[in-house]
């Protein structure tokens, strides 16, 4: 499969006189930056807020850095609960839920 | 019912009785003078497919007992005074968690490392609660090897029925002596359901937990009151004692176990001297036969009690409670592992009869 792709890229590059490497780069750009919303797995996190103790471990664990403790409000325990401030970027890796000591987070993935 | 009669040593009979009662768990540690219980179990318990562990200490042994009991299985441990002291925390936990267990104490002289000869110095520890908190154990004092057999089997039934520790109090004499024992063909073993046991949820809607900690004072108070209610039922139903020669008795001996055996002969000898001596022999040290003592104190013929023990005066306090000041309670005791000679007791009986002893002090 990969050899077929490479063969195709090579053929296209030579037919249209584009540098092979530039073609690869451009294709990746289109795939991963422009079209990523439709190709890279997207995820969704839900917080059972009143269990959260505001420890911040999920905030540090998230590789996309989309979680924060909401300093504008308190949950029923009196902590600033964790929440996703950029849900579109979630990749559903579940690092946050795995790290959470209070089983606050449920993670879904497309 | 054909009965086998076998000459056996007291300690070994304890082990045999447990196995006959369906106990398949024994956890112990060596200590003189009860180690033969463990030796017997090391062979017999394994041969019947049960669990035998020589634990790393008496502390570990009582906690293994706690575990097996929590999982719903009959279990026994045995030790002697210093080892029973080590077990007190575990016994308190067993009481708090309401688990059935049988603990055998072959008492030796104390305090501390003490000696290895017989004594009855653990009466307070056994009946007033050697461990912390408000709890009771059923305490049974057999007086012969035959009684060791019958009462150890009974202990398992009582423990299961009331979900508490049944403690067997023996001493080195009883543990080491050999007497003929008549074994029944079938034991009166009562199988009691244990839905509370932590042995796997098995589809129950809630998991079973065995615990003795209740942080909320209201909850813990309620638990304690439930325990007290249980103990009242035991006190109402399980008092056992033997009354010997009580008709027209002038002096009533109170003694348990080995001292009661010695005192039986003294009763005969006193009769030859024309003194009517009776005996109340508690078989359950808890619940204590206060009523029997009170009835004896009410008898017009009774002049005094003589309490005979291998200690500095422990059961005598319960005898005095039962007598409630109606009649004097005198004392004869030996310590350090010594046993009283019959003559010592007889001399005291004669002295009481002649009015030569007055109340005051134990010795």
């Amino acid at each position: 499969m990969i050899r077929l792709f490479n063969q195709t890229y090579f053929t296209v590059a030579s037919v249209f006189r584009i540098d092979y490497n530039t073609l690869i780069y451009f294709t990746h750009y289109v795939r991963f930056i422009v079209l990523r919303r439709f190709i890279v797995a997207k995820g969704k996190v839900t917080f059972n807020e009143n269990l959260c103790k505001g420890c911040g471990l999920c905030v540090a664990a998230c590789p996309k850095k989309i979680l924060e403790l909401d300093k504008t409000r308190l949950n029923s325990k009196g902590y600033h609960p964790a929440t996703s401030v950029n849900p579109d970027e979630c990749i559903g890796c579940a690092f946050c839920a795995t790290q959470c000591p209070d089983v606050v987070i449920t993670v879904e993935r497309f | 019912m054909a009965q086998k009669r076998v000459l056996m040593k007291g300690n070994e009979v304890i082990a045999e009785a447990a196995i006959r009662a369906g106990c398949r768990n024994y956890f112990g540690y060596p200590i003189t003078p009860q180690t033969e219980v463990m030796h017997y179990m090391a062979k017999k318990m394994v041969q019947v497919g049960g669990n035998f562990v020589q634990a790393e200490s008496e502390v570990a042994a009582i906690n293994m007992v706690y575990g097996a009991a929590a999982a719903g299985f009959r279990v026994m441990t045995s030790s002697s005074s210093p080892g029973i002291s080590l077990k007190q925390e575990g016994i308190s936990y067993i009481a708090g968690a309401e688990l059935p267990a049988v603990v055998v104490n072959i008492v030796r002289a104390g305090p501390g490392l003490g000696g290895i000869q017989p004594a009855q110095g653990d009466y307070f520890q056994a009946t007033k609660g050697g461990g912390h908190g408000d709890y009771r154990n059923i305490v049974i004092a057999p007086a012969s090897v035959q009684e060791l057999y019958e009462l150890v089997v009974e202990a398992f039934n009582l423990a299961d029925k009331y979900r508490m520790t049944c403690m067997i109090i023996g001493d080195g004499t009883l543990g080491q002596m050999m007497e003929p024992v008549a074994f029944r063909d079938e034991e009166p073993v009562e199988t009691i359901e244990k839905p509370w046991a932590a042995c796997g949820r098995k589809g129950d809607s809630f998991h079973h937990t065995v615990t003795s900690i209740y942080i909320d004072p209201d909850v813990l108070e309620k638990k304690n009151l439930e325990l007290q209610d249980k103990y009242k039922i035991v006190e109402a139903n399980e008092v056992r004692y033997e009354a010997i020669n009580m008709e027209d008795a002038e002096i009533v001996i109170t003694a348990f176990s080995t001292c009661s055996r010695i005192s039986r002969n003294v009763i005969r000898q006193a009769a030859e001297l024309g003194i009517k001596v009776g005996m109340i022999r508690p078989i359950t040290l808890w619940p204590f036969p206060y009523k029997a003592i009170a009835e004896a104190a009410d008898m017009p013929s009774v002049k005094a009690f003589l309490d005979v023990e291998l200690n500095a005066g422990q059961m005598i306090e319960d005898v005095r409670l039962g007598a409630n000041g109606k009649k004097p309670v005198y004392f004869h005791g030996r310590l350090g592992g010594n046993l009283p000679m019959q003559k010592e007791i007889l001399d005291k009986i004669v002295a009481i009869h002649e009015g030569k002893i007055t109340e005051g002090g134990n010795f």
Partner: protein
Amino acid sequence: MAVVFEPTKGLTDKPFHYCPGCCHGIIHRLVAETLVANDALETAVGVASVGCTYNSYEYIACDMVQAAHGRAPAVATGIKRNLKDSFVFTYQGDGDLASIGTAEIVHAAARSENITVIFVNNAVYGMTSGQMAPTTLVGQVTTTSPWGRDPSYQGYPINVSEFLSNLAGAAYIERVCVTDFKNIQNAKRAIQKAYNVQKNKLGFSLVEVLSTCPTNWGKEPLAAMDWLKENMEKQYPLGCYKGADITFDAEGNYVSGAIPATANNCVNVGEVKK
């Protein structure tokens, strides 16, 4: 949308009372998930110890027995000897296991009791407010080592995994931590391996999990994780100390690896000893 992570059935609904950032929550969850993954929730019996997790029997959804301080391995012995086919485990802290319970853990391992011990090591006494533990590091400040642990009168820490691995009865001993996703997955793998060791009746297994104690270390949860990585891992290196070569197949059946000669209590000894 597929759910890739949700609260496990192995835990009850009761919210944990543990401090913010305490690793007990993570470790409880890993144990609970292992019970569920192996279909053991209906048969397993756990033994709760004394310390912060004295009431872990309220959180873990299998049958649980609460034990006296340090005595959990003895209690587990009493249970497992009777329930030879059920998964029996203890959950203990460093005071419980390495201080008052030293005799019980050594002898349970020496007898090769077929139980699994989850040992949570946070180098301090938590519940009783921060005293020195047998695993406290030299120089570490606690309420009973106010100038830092001084070996001249307070001795040295005990490395439990190394120490127990010398016992012939120990089948599998591994030390892990739960500081990040990779380590948590590794810890879960170790707990699953311990489960398989017990299921195959190979002998005694113990998983030591390094943990933080933010409250008694006086640190924020994240800073506590960093302190663990920088200091505790030096004294207590992660890794497998016994039974590294034990392997299982996909169904969890024992394939190969050095094990104690006889797992003692899973054979009816009475049949052979007449």
